[in-house]
């Protein structure tokens, strides 16, 4: 992503602060939210920064349902929008996530995961919302879920989240955990123009010809923002290419398949992973978020002791990066999946592994991060 090698501005920032930097770089001009630990810094910094930008609007809403509602409204009016929350708020947002999928509204939702269920562990890390991010809203739908494991990545992945949201006209969920969000680190702020910033496609035809949900080669119809003279109808009911409600099986089928296809056919572009010493790995680790950092240190230490270990850090969680994980499973004798839940990503690993190699899980749900020593111990036991 980064190209220029000039001396860039460095700041010592929290993961949550880096998310805001990323959002502003990506062109976010609208934020609506409701405070919740451990995501609140994102909201507080947005409250201070956005009103000082020419177009920026910040809103505190009465709850997370309203926050996502307002964000979708602003997105329909042409803005790049974001909201951030944690478990309880993310649960409240689910209906509107489905709405955003259905009307194909580009937006970014950051969920800084904390221990659950319910109020759970407000200040402790967890990765318990992974499958909820994928399947939390009702009905069949494609969605993009990203994650970040360090502060620089918080910035980068936020930019990517916006870009993917715009490119594929879809909500994108960025899953962070409390450790990543609340760690301070030195990061580089990219120079203007250093990152490619994508914008949603807008109609190139006059209003009389425009069909708001017509299929295109990419499967992504252009969006006419509210007030641009196109006077479209937007509805959460299943709709025909004109955007009007339909119950005709042929129209429903076409619409649903296009929605899946617009993501499916770009897996290569969407599925991001980071590989570390995987070429000759006999033991593979698949991790994401802050746990991937523990895993990296464990891999380094294990290599010093002669174990051939490699690590795949998932930056995209969904659509699940099958090709990379399958390749690792083919060469490794065993795959370890450490995560701060009872086994949510390991389900995906087992699914694509399809019995080819042994998959062992390392799970922790006590509000503590999985340490490098724990992973190292599992490596030596394999």
């Amino acid at each position, binding site marked *: 992503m980064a190209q220029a090698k000039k001396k860039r501005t*460095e*700041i*010592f920032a929290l993961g949550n602060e880096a998310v805001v930097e990323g959002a502003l770089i990506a062109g976010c001009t609208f934020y609506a939210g409701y405070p919740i*630990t*451990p995501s609140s810094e994102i909201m507080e910094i947005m409250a201070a920064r956005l009103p000082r930008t020419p177009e920026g609007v910040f809103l505190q809403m009465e709850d997370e349902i309203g926050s996502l509602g307002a964000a979708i409204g602003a997105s329909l009016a042409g803005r790049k929008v974001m909201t951030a929350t944690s478990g309880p708020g993310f649960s409240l947002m689910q209906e509107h996530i489905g709405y955003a999928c259905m009307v194909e509204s580009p937006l970014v939702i950051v969920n800084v995961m904390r221990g659950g269920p319910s109020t759970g562990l*407000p*200040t402790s890390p967890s990765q318990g919302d992974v499958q909820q991010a994928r399947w939390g809203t009702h009905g069949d739908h494609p969605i993009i879920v990203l994650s970040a494991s*360090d502060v620089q990545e918080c910035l980068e992945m936020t930019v990517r989240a916006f870009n993917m949201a715009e490119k594929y006209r879809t909500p994108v969920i960025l899953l962070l955990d*409390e*450790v990543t969000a*609340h*760690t*301070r*680190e*030195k990061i580089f702020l990219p120079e203007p123009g250093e990152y490619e910033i994508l914008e949603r496609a807008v109609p190139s035809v006059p209003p009389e010809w425009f069909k708001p949900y017509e299929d295109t080669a990419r499967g992504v119809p252009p969006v006419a923002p509210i007030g641009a003279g196109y006077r479209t109808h937007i509805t959460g009911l299943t709709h025909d290419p004109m955007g009007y409600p339909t119950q005709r099986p042929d129209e429903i089928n076409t619409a649903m398949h296009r929605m899946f296809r617009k993501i499916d056919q770009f897996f290569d572009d969407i599925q991001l992973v980071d590989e570390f010493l995987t070429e000759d790995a006999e033991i593979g680790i698949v991790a994401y978020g*802050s746990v991937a*950092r*523990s895993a*990296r*240190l464990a891999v*380094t230490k294990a290599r010093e002791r002669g174990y051939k270990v490699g690590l795949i850090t998932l930056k995209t969680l969904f659509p699940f990066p099958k090709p990379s994980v399958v390749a690792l499973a083919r060469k490794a004798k065993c795959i370890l999946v450490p995560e701060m839940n009872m086994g949510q990503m390991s389900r995906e690993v087992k699914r694509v592994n399809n019995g080819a190699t042994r998959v062992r899980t390392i799970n922790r749900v006590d509000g503590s*991060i999985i*340490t*490098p*020593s724990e992973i190292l111990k599992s490596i030596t036991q394999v």
Partner: protein
Amino acid sequence: MSKKAKMQELNRFELRLSGLGGQGIITLGKILGTALALGHGYYVTQTQSYGPEARGGSSRADLVISSHPISYPKTENLDLLVALSQEACNAYYRYLKPNGVLMVDTSMVANTPTNVYKGLPFTTLAKDKIGLVQTLNILVLGAVTHLLPFAGQRRMKKAVEQALPPKIQEINIKAFNLGHREAAKHFGDAPAVWLEAEEMADAEEDTEHV
């Protein structure tokens, strides 16, 4: 432009600042982290206690400092534990490495778990010598700066100035200097294991233009 002196090589130096809420521990952690990351050019991760833990009266900030990118951001085995309360001292002493250093505020910590420690009455000094107990954290920063062979005084002070509002900068710099002086007088040098490159840090300090 200054000639870039070589930094002391560090491989995960782990440090914990701990004590009571209201002692300015988080600010201390942020300033120390900022100075080491931006001023000195180290890789630094800083984490801290949040929420109920932070509100229940205790406070904690952890730093990992390294010459190389840091994978695991939290501390596992401490090289330096700064304890500004008895509770913190009791709770965290066991996380020290065998050669790790314990530094305490002797006006707050009556019983240390070991005889080998570096102690100064920071709170009393802040109250009596500076006349403002809130400068406690920066006083501690001065002492820590003396102890860390890879930390440069001038860059620390610059970070203090950048972090604090102008009105209270002067008094805090005074506190920093006092902390540094007192530590030099009573603590002696940094432990041998940390020392290797003290000269280099000094050399670097000399060539720097602020």
